[in-house]
């Protein structure tokens, strides 16, 4: 195997795939990148730890001799990243059984694994398939995935639900049980049977790294246990999370007592300042109290260690029962507020009670929403 490629091109490929390789040394083949040089397909790189797998390729390469080689993903990608910006010649030295990487007058010799031991990607016949623009998927995931749990005894909450309804509506949902996010998009495909699947958050983070803000389509196929994301010259396959996602429609409140429209920028900056107030050591959750009365919203945070911040936002539009008081986890509210800060002028928050979940929406767009549960404090009851 021998090929010549620009360092930038090579680095792009290795950066994309190396994270799919296992970082445990128990099975060397799984910690490797499979490099395939073919005159017909160009240069292809594949890595998998059996939970997630990525394959990507380029034609911007000069293939001198076809062949396949398996190298340690971490060593190879770290080395490639640091090479000077110049053409790189990569060749398999059959005498030493090492991969020779030549740049200018310098050469690195990297050990190789037996490429026959690499399992390849578990791509099977697709059961279902949907297609959507990359920018839509990117927006949908950015607006939802942060609400998934990092750890939860119910594994379904550590993933993002893709729920395809009968009318072709795609709902992307994430929740850690304290908050829930939902993004909706009408798919172009017609006559789809309803189906759903749950993608692990690690896979979501990896796919977000390759999505851009273009109209270029990405397809999502599911098999019994896997999901495959595919776009030109890129394929990501991941194991799905087993289990039934709880009925999330019931969680979205439908009746409200108080409603407020608040300036998105002022709301976010007030929360950013509130965020610096440390959490009470006993409760360990940063809290913010919101008090609504007349045309004012008052945000109050308190810490025995630091003191307190009282922010008053004037000119808010309050409808329904007032005065009204509610307490939230500052971090949760801030994560949501940051999404709205760059989206529109106002944030709409609907409250169904001091102890009941609140619904947060963008008055200018109805395709995403957030539900957040308030905190129960000693003064709540």
């Amino acid at each position, binding site marked *: 195997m021998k090929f010549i490629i620009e360092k930038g091109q090579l680095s792009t490929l290795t950066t994309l795939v190396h994270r799919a390789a296992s970082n445990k040394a128990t099975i060397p083949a799984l910690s490797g990148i499979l490099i395939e040089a073919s005159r017909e397909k160009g240069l292809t790189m594949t890595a998998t730890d059996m939970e997630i797998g990525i394959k990507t390729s380029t034609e911007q390469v000069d293939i001198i001799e076809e062949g396949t080689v398996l190298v340690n993903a971490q060593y190879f990608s770290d080395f490639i990243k640091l090479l000077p910006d110049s053409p790189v010649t990569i060749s398999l030295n059959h005498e030493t059984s090492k991969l020779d990487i030549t740049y200018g007058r310098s050469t690195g010799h990297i050990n190789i694994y037996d490429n*026959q031991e690499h*399992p390849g990607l578990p791509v099977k016949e697709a059961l279902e398939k949907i297609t959507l623009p990359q920018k839509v998927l990117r927006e949908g995931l950015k607006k939802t995935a942060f609400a998934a749990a990092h750890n939860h005894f119910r594994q*379904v909450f550590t993933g993002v639900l893709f729920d395809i309804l009968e009318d072709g509506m795609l709902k992307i949902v994430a929740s850690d049980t304290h908050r*829930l996010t939902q993004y909706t998009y009408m798919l172009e495909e017609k006559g789809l049977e309803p189906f759903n699947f749950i993608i692990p958050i690690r896979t979501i983070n990896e796919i977000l790294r390759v999505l851009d803000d273009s109209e270029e389509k990405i397809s999502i196929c599911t098999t*019994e246990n896997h999901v495959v994301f595919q776009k030109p010259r890129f394929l990501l396959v991941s194991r799905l999370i*087993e*289990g039934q996602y709880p009925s999330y429609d019931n*969680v979205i409140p439908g009746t409200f007592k108080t409603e407020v429209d608040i300036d998105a920028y002022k709301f976010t900056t007030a929360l950013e300042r509130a965020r610096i107030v440390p959490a009470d050591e006993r409760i360990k959750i940063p809290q913010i109290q919101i008090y609504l009365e007349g045309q004012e919203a008052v945000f109050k945070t308190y810490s025995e260690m630091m003191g307190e911040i009282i922010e008053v936002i004037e000119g808010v539009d309050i409808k329904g029962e007032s005065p009204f008081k509610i307490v939230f986890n500052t971090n949760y509210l801030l994560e949501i507020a940051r999404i709205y800060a760059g989206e529109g002028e106002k944030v709409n928050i609907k409250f169904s009670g001091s102890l*009941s979940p609140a619904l947060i929406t963008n008055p200018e767009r109805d395709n995403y929403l957030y539900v957040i*549960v308030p905190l129960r404090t000693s003064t709540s009851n």
Partner: protein
Amino acid sequence: MIIRELILEVGELKERIANLEKSMALYEEETRLPAVTENLFLQGESYEKLGRLYKEGYHVCPASFGQVRQGECLFCIAFMEKE
């Protein structure tokens, strides 16, 4: 080659376990169905018991029933409000 076969076999076993777990979950759901149906019509005292259990720090939502709760749970609240 042996390692490759082992990896593939592990992959297949994982899939078989996943399928078995899915079948078991279905079976459990079927056998649990009467109890759930019964719960859907909880009234008065039973509802209070649910509320008490929730306040004592346990999940009452069908997804996580009886598990220790860390903070408020949207699904428990929705379940109790539905009652």
